[in-house]
């Protein structure tokens, strides 16, 4: 197989509150022989909030990030669902609106950059599934996760809006019946758990503005996974991870029931199956202890 190379847009949490996500991404890429060229010039994507204040500024900043991936001539890989949404949404809007693209490029020209629309944007989960392939993953699994019932938690911004999903990924999935994460669990030798909340919202984006709403959604998600006999949860989104890993106390109070499960990043789950050590995967950086390793 040709060596896979991508431009990595880390997003902010990988550098701050989820160091384990960065560590496990690099560890898994190394195991799989995938080269990730980090876009160190990239800014925050605005996390679906900056656009509420200043939509144009959000477009310009995201177009700048994509422009750097284009400079490398590489597909941009994201490791956060919301980064994926914001960059893919920017690409979608600019590629479908020449006037808007010209306006944004007029700004980028001030710093000697331009957005052309030549780089694809995909989440690392889909890069692995579409480009590396689950059959190849299966061949590389050295420590199958066969003793675990694992609850996939997809995270909204990887599966909705499906319009972007269809543009970004070869294996576009349906938001009402997503399969990618289930298939990755199976490829890692684990048992995938089905539950209603797996494609629902964790509440992260309203945590400060609507804490009660956010806490109930978190509680429902963890409770759903627990009731389906999951040993732990797995997610491709660091924001979902933060919510499910660090906020279970508030969630438990909000839904009137003690809920808590270890939550792994998709990269950590894959890393375990590929034989990475818990140190390499940063498993000690979880608030809800990963008690099974």
């Amino acid at each position, binding site marked *: 197989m040709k060596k896979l190379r991508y431009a990595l847009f880390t997003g*902010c*949490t990988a*550098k*701050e*509150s*989820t*160091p384990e996500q960065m560590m496990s991404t690099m560890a898994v890429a190394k195991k799989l022989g995938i080269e990730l060229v980090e876009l*160190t*010039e*990239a*800014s*925050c994507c*605005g996390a*679906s*909030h*900056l*656009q*509420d*204040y*200043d*939509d*144009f*500024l959000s477009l*310009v*900043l995201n177009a*700048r990030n994509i422009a750097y991936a284009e400079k490398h001539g590489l597909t941009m890989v994201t490791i956060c669902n919301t980064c994926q949404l914001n960059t893919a949404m920017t690409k979608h809007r600019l590629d479908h609106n020449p006037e808007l693209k010209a306006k944004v490029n007029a*700004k*980028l020209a001030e*710093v000697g*950059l331009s957005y052309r629309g030549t780089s694809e944007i995909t989440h690392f989960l889909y890069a692995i599934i579409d480009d590396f392939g689950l059959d190849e993953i299966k061949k590389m699994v050295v420590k199958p996760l066969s003793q675990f019932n694992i609850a996939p938690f997809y995270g*909204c*911004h990887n599966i*909705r*809006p*499906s319009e972007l999903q269809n543009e970004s990924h070869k294996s576009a999935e*349906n*938001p*009402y*019946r997503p399969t990618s994460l289930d298939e990755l669990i199976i490829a890692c030798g684990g048992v995938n758990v089905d539950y*209603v909340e797996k494609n*629902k*919202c964790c*509440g992260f*984006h*309203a945590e*400060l*503005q*609507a804490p*009660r*709403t*956010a806490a109930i*959604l978190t509680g429902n998600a963890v409770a759903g996974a627990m009731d389906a006999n999951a040993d732990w949860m797995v997610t491709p989104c660091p924001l979902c991870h933060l919510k499910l890993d*660090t*906020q279970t*106390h*508030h969630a438990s109070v909000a839904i009137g029931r003690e809920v808590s499960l270890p939550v792994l990043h998709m990269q950590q789950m894959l890393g375990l199956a590929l034989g990475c050590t818990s140190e390499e995967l940063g498993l*000690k*950086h*979880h*608030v809800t202890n990963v008690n099974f390793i």
Partner: protein
Amino acid sequence: MGTHKITTQDVTFKVFRFNADEDYLPYYKEYKMEVTSEEVVLDILNRIKWDHDGSFSYRRSCRHGICGACAIKVNGRSTLACKESMNDMIELFGNEITIEPLSIKRAVKDMIIDKADFWEKHAQVQPYIVSDIDDNPESENLVSPEEAERLLDSDLCIQCGACHYACPAVEVNEDFIGPAAFAAAYRFEADVRDQAGTSRISEVNQEFQGVWDCVKCYECQEACPKEVDPIEKITKLHNMIFAKGVATNNVATRHAVGFKHSIAKHGLLDEGELVRYSEGNIGVMKHVPVAIKMFTKGKIVLPWNMPKSDKLDEIKKLVKSSSTAKF
């Protein structure tokens, strides 16, 4: 023209049944049917009623996707029964199909729900043009095609409730106005003839009920059978709140604005500072217990270690030159 081949498939339908007058609890009844590739979901509802149980109840009217009466959920997915092809549903969900009302907790009889909250929320946003109508106008009140474009298809809403009852924030917060009424609010805010001033936009700016409580899950966009894209309108309302100067200084507005401050300073988001800036120095205290737990796990970057984007000067320059909003 070639002849279109009609195929058939065996499907088991698990159908939600409940009669508020007789039942304490809802139950699911199974119906096995041979479904042809030509049928839509509404055909199945009709066959249940006509061939199996005459008491089965559901709303239907136009059969052309325009009255909005027949919105239900198929395997948890909001849909208009008259528009949705059974073939597509079988392809997506397989040969076991669950049919439920849009909102189980609002069920009155089978598929029929009490939509009172939907209509109350709708009424709350003044879903009409507010204007002093001249009874004897000298000329027509023309709207140009460009001005009509600004509605961004928000006028296509048929008030079926698919998005409202797909919204998780509606589900857990009875005060939340919800995506359908927000789209209606935008439809009239964007209308050049409207003279509501700040009364409508202030209503959707209120904490606990307004656009700030949106969780940004995009369920509404997926659920809408008319491609109204309610979350796009929610973003537009956020922008209008700032543009019309009704934004109040609170945790939600500071949270949106805080991203700009952080990006201008570091390129990346300073997570800790965003929480402090949004909550204020007193409000932030409630986050301390979780922050301590996170700190002990190496999840908090201290201010003096805050990472910065390379070529930060570019970002600073762009933030300065590309900003279009004020707060």
